């Protein structure tokens, strides 16, 4: 039993098979990348794992515990956090509050109607924002941040949930080169320091090869290759259908 086990997962949308009998596992502490062409099913796979949608057949387990019938918030409770491909923040809340909400939920303070929220967890939040280079934007509304900065915020929010396993869907898409580089460093460092297991997708191969310890390639809803980064890079099929001339 690995840390995360996906066993024969299939997801059909109507007649369309988005995920086709996919099985793979991620070891504890691994940094596993899922790559593949657009529409391969990466986001769908993440949605299955994180409980947003239910698999048609198959099962998913975290540390042996079946996730398949759990609600997203229950899955989060047992230690999974995720970011989204399309930015998904609290638009009218400030960047500071966005992270704060994550911490409140994480510390189960949502049931307390008398615990004042103002400034709560201030240092912790600012530290996280600094790490994603949003220190200067902490007081701005998330919805008013530029697209790339919202992606950075997305990352901070996911990290604030203090997960055992982190799912990042194209974490650096839309980020500038500078931010991408620092995000790579941040993700790698935090994941290593805290012993977080990482599962991520990304189309920027620099990011993938910088971070990933193992890679799976998804194509038409099926895993066509899994291995160490250099193995996958050398795989002919991957070259042909995904990387193109490189």
């Amino acid at each position, binding site marked *: 039993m690995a840390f995360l086990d996906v066993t024969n997962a299939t997801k059909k949308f109507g007649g369309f098979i988005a995920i086709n009998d996919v099985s793979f596992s991620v070891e504890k502490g691994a940094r596993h990348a899922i790559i593949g062409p657009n529409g391969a099913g990466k*986001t769908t796979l993440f*949605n299955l794992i994180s409980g*947003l949608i239910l698999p048609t057949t198959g099962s998913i387990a975290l540390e042996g515990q079946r996730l398949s019938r759990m609600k997203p918030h229950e899955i989060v409770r047992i230690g999974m956090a995720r970011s*989204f*491909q*399309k930015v*998904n923040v609290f638009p009218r809340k400030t960047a500071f509050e966005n992270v704060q909400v994550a911490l409140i939920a994480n510390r189960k303070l949502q049931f307390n109607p008398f615990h004042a929220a103002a400034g709560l967890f201030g240092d912790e939040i600012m530290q996280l924002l600094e790490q994603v280079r949003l220190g200067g934007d902490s007081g701005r509304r998330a919805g008013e941040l530029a697209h790339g900065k919202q992606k950075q915020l997305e990352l901070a929010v996911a990290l604030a949930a203090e997960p055992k396993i982190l799912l990042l*869907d194209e974490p650096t898409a839309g980020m500038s080169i500078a931010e991408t580089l620092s995000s790579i460093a941040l993700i790698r460092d935090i994941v290593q320091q805290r012993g977080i297991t990482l599962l991520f997708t990304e189309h920027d191969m620099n990011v993938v090869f910088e971070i990933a310890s193992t890679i799976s390639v998804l194509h038409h809803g099926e895993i066509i290759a899994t291995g160490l980064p250099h193995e996958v890079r050398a795989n002919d099929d991957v070259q042909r259908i995904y990387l193109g001339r490189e």
Partner: protein
Amino acid sequence: MFANPMILFIQVMNSLSLAMNLFIIAAGLTLIFGVLRIVNFAHGAFYMVGAYVALSILRVTGDSNLGFLLGVLGAGALMGAMAFVVERGLLSRLYDKEHMLQLLFTFALVLVIKDLVKMIWGSGQYSIGAPPFLRGAVNLGISPYPKYALFLCVMGPIIAVAIWFFMERTRWGRILRAAREDRVMLNALGTDVKLVYSGVFVTGAALAAMGGALAAPRSAVDPGMDSLVIIDAFIIVIIGGLGSLLGSFVGALILGFLTVMGSIYLKEWVIVASYVMMVVILLVRPWGLFGKADEERH
């Protein structure tokens, strides 16, 4: 009652004509609701204005078939023109503001319109007769049945098909559906969204007014007529599913049958029947019968 097929037949006809009467009223609401996402409280007021305008036109033309036709069309035209002024002058300023402000706006509109109607036409009751060729009853073989009710049974589907065709089979309809989702983007793609919005609001208002004129021969024209229909219209639109025309049609049928059959079997308790039905439908289908879940992908 089932022992007597003739009575059953009449009650079924009663249900149908009520349903179509309700559908005609709700059609404009569906349209405005569906595209502009505005909960138009003023729909009932538009409906009432339509009936009053038709009344005034009929006073001029005298009681005739042509007069009735002019009354219905005139109600639609006049209400449409007023809606245009209101939309362009006031409502259009609110589209990119806080969404629920539009609710407040239509609420204010109800107050203003109702009082203006009272100032113009007074607080008394009036009546519009059915046009001469639709008076009395016609023999349906099994039993005689009021002509005007039959007329509504025909008008309902005609209006439904016309709107359906427009929405689902024309490019205009596609544009309306796109406008519902992202106004700014559609505008940037070359559609004059302001015009589209005006058009929808005007059409919806005109439909409401014509509904008022068409319903008048079965009801009174008085200052309370709006509040009697508005809630039924909302029930229909909601159980059918937001913005779904087919849904509204089916919703109207359900409410029509429920009201008629309910008043036979449930007697006065029919008062809660429509709400129980609404609760049940929404619990089983949270987006209404024909509504689509606002699914979002991330």
